[in-house]
């Protein structure tokens, strides 16, 4: 089986821009939650959000980008550009692929919602001004595959180009499927990532109505995975991209492999539209599949970057799923949820966390779970909190669970 490695990383995440900044934020436990003035203006029941740092789309991505592309595509393009340059496949100035055959370079993105802001801004236009006033840009801006399409347009990548939606697992699913495109022989390189820009009044109101968002108004403690006082997630936005490449292709061009995507698993709970089964259900299958495919022993997984959303149901179910797979070896896994820093970035989360998982391998440091003060006694895991843990990391698991009961697990190893 073809080994697939990660040779480039790019990220724009809540409160952080670029790989170095995002990783520093994760290690420092620098929570990005803040009162969002736009949500305050809209009068949403919850006003905390984890936003990316402000940027000017026209200045960064070229004139007309603000008008022609939705925010989620801006984020995807920014993260992809960084990852492509980081992998040495193109410069940041000239994004055209130079280090790989464009016809053998694919793009695979995950997004839960797509152009949320475009829907939110255009529908009132339709209702108030009428059908003849709907923008012709609505469709290309809103379609969830526009992020992947735009990355292809900007980089010249003409290989397979797809978008996967497993809601909050979409970023991880994209890396899974991107890897399999390479294994299946359809591409040498895949630009894979997750993206979401769903912090709209409508979406925030809906998540609040579901009871999914924390009611804690204090930004400093609102997103607190595994804490006994957690009561929901803080919504976030962002994008992260990894460059996937066959190990052979990477070696031939002298690229540095930062991690191997050794295992990947996917499953469904077949249980409920939004709630996980108490025993972890389908997550067990996804985690087991990733570990078995990687061929690592249960005692060889050093670190888990957990889904850890900070909702009461998710964090408890995830802990049970982990124990169902690893048994007594669960205690040997250093668990962290970086959502204490980033909040829940929905379709971007799996990719953002995969980037942090790769960084843990590269640097031998595990980021702390921010805002964790009193660990829930029901969650019997070795959760890293307070400060980063210096530890050799050779194998790391990253889990993602989406609404719809769709689960993804990635097992990354040191090349």
């Amino acid at each position, binding site marked *: 089986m073809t080994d697939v490695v990660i040779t480039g990383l790019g990220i724009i995440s809540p409160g952080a821009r670029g790989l170095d900044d995002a990783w520093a934020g994760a290690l420092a436990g620098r929570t990005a939650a803040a009162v969002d003035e736009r949500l305050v203006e809209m009068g949403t029941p919850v006003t905390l959000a984890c936003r990316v740092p402000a940027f000017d789309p026209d200045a960064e991505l070229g004139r007309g980008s603000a008008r022609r592309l939705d925010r989620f595509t801006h984020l995807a393009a920014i993260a992809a550009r960084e990852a492509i340059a980081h992998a040495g496949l193109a410069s940041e100035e000239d994004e055209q692929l130079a280090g790989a055959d464009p016809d053998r370079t694919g793009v695979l993105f995950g997004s839960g919602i797509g152009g949320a802001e475009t829907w939110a801004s255009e529908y009132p236009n339709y209702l108030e001004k009428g059908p003849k006033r709907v923008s012709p840009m609505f469709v*290309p801006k809103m379609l969830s595959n526009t992020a992947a399409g735009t990355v292809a347009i900007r980089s010249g990548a003409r290989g397979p180009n797809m978008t996967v939606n497993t809601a909050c697992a979409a970023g991880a699913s994209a890396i899974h499927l991107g890897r399999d495109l390479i294994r299946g022989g359809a591409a040498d390189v895949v630009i894979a990532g997750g993206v979401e820009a769903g912090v709209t009044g409508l979406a925030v109101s809906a998540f609040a109505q579901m009871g999914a968002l924390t009611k804690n108004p204090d930004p400093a403690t609102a997103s607190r995975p595994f804490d006994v006082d957690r009561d929901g997630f803080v919504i976030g936005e962002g994008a992260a991209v990894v460059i996937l490449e066959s190990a052979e292709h990477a070696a031939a061009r002298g690229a540095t492999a930062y991690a191997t995507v050794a295992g990947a698993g996917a499953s469904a709970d077949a249980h409920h539209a939004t709630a996980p089964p108490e025993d972890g259900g389908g997550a067990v299958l996804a985690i087991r599949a990733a570990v078995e495919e990687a061929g690592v022993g249960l005692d060889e997984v050093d670190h888990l970057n957990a889904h850890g959303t900070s909702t009461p149901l998710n964090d408890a179910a995830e802990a049970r799923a982990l124990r169902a797979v690893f048994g007594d070896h669960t205690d040997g896994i250093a668990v962290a949820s970086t959502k204490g820093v980033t909040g829940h970035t929905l379709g971007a989360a799996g990719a953002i966390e995969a980037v942090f998982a790769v960084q843990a391998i590269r640097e031998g440091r595990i980021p702390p779970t921010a805002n964790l003060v009193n660990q829930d006694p029901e969650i019997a895991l070795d959760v890293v909190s307070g400060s980063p843990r210096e530890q050799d990391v050779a194998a790391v698991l990253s889990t993602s669970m989406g609404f719809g009961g769709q689960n993804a697990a990635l097992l990354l190893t040191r090349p």
Partner: protein
Amino acid sequence: MSQDLLATFTEVLTEEFGIEADQVTPDATFEALGLDSLDVVELTLVLEEKTGVKLEDEELEDVRTVQDAMNKVQEKQA
């Protein structure tokens, strides 16, 4: 009148489409300004708000330049 209309086009193309003001001349083609067919349709929506005149799809078929579009608007205003 024509000067007013050119000023309106210039305002819309600079503010809404990010085009440099000195590029907006009557002879400039929309293609040269970097506008594709979707942009031109969107331009008509903004112009309708500014001028009260809506250019329909079929009226755009032979519109290539800013002058062409201004002529169509003036015809409909008359």
